[in-house]
């Protein structure tokens, strides 16, 4: 008999079930990809704040491109890197909507640099989920601006050489310099404790928007097991041991 056919006997109450704002569509991420955790946490935040009916999500170009299939709220698919500009257009057109973008590090930190910096500097009242997995996942593992020194990728076969390609770009530290943003934080999900912290951060980032506090960005340091060619469990260790050296966790800017 299949373990999955477990019936719930009387006397049990649910502790955790799939968030209401998620559809029944399976995620298209690879097994053990952290994207799935963030996607779930965003849905949990939307549920917790009860904003599903006024939320508009912005799907990036990247492994999260299918995002609109997973959510039960309005969605738009943005051109690669332009999510913050699209978000600006939506929010300015209809300030009652809760607008969030969900972007990878190639999307936000490379091609989308200008749109991100200026949306942040204008203090656009939007929420940005920034998935830093140090790689271009969807296209097959090319270097991202966040790729670690010496890390092998499809476009750095000998490992990233900082002399020719520079050091990992710390976008959050850079944005924290600006007057515009109200909340910039870096989180991770390599263990349950950090999942819970990341969850809180995402909720705060949405709350800020509801309260009209302006630009909030949650960077989440992630692993891409498929392209690093390690197991999902090793992926958690990779984040904890390798990535945090360059991307320390914590709040970089909190304006209240």
């Amino acid at each position: 008999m299949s373990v999955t056919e477990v019936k719930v006997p009387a006397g049990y109450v649910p502790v955790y079930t799939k968030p209401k704002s998620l559809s029944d569509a399976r995620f298209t991420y690879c097994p053990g990809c952290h994207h799935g955790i963030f996607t779930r946490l965003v849905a949990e935040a939307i549920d917790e704040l009860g904003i599903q009916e006024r939320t508009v999500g912005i799907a990036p170009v990247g492994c999260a491109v299918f995002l609109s299939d997973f959510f039960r709220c309005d969605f738009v698919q943005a051109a690669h890197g332009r999510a913050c500009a699209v978000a600006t257009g939506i929010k300015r057109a209809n300030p009652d909507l809760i607008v969030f973008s969900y972007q990878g590090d190639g999307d936000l930190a490379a091609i989308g640099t200008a749109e991100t910096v200026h949306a942040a500097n204008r203090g656009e009242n939007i929420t940005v989920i920034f998935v830093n997995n140090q790689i271009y996942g969807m296209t097959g593992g090319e270097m991202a601006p966040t790729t670690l020194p010496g890390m092998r990728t499809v476009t750095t076969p000998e490992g990233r050489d900082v002399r020719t390609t520079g050091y990992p770009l710390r976008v959050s530290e850079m944005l924290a310099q600006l007057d515009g943003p109200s909340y910039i934080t870096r989180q991770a999900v390599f263990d349950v404790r950090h999942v819970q912290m990341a969850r809180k951060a995402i909720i705060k980032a949405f709350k800020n928007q509801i309260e009209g506090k302006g630009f909030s960005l949650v960077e989440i340091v992630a692993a891409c097991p498929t392209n690093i060619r390690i197991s999902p469990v090793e992926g958690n260790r990779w984040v904890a041991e390798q990535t945090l050296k360059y991307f320390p966790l914590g709040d970089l800017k909190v304006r209240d």
Partner: protein
Amino acid sequence: METGVIFAGFGGQGILLAGKILARAAMEKGFEVTWLPSYGPEMRGGTANCTVVIADEPVGSPIVGSPQVLVAMNGPSFARFLPRVAPGGAVIANSSLILERQERPDVRVVWAPMNEIAQELGEPRCANMVGLGAAVKALGILPLAAVIAAMEEELGARGREKLVEVNRQALYRGFAWATEAR
């Protein structure tokens, strides 16, 4: 002469490699050849397939409406490609994973327990070579030796010399299975 072979299965089953080895073998034997993979994210997790065309004049279309031979390594691809096989063609079907066993009067289906055989050989990942071995027999235009040589070259290029021996066994087993199959 122009023959099309389609390999299809799950992402991780080594579908593209099997096709590439066949293409290389044909090239070494002086045939004109093309190898066309399905590509992009849909491969990840999902399904993969590739088309190999072998001909004695330059290959026009690398896509094939109705292949001579189909190697189907899982259920979905068996169901999807069986209808397209050319009348009189052959199908190498992986009985380990294909549950709904359709047939076609005008097509010869060889049921091979590719995963079991691979398990027996102690290397689950070589099920694709079992399928390829059987396909070589069904195709009947290339000597198995040429395919083995091509396999060695491909694995060598990937630094997987260690796996050469077990994959050779798998090719033999597949070839034999198709020969004895009634």
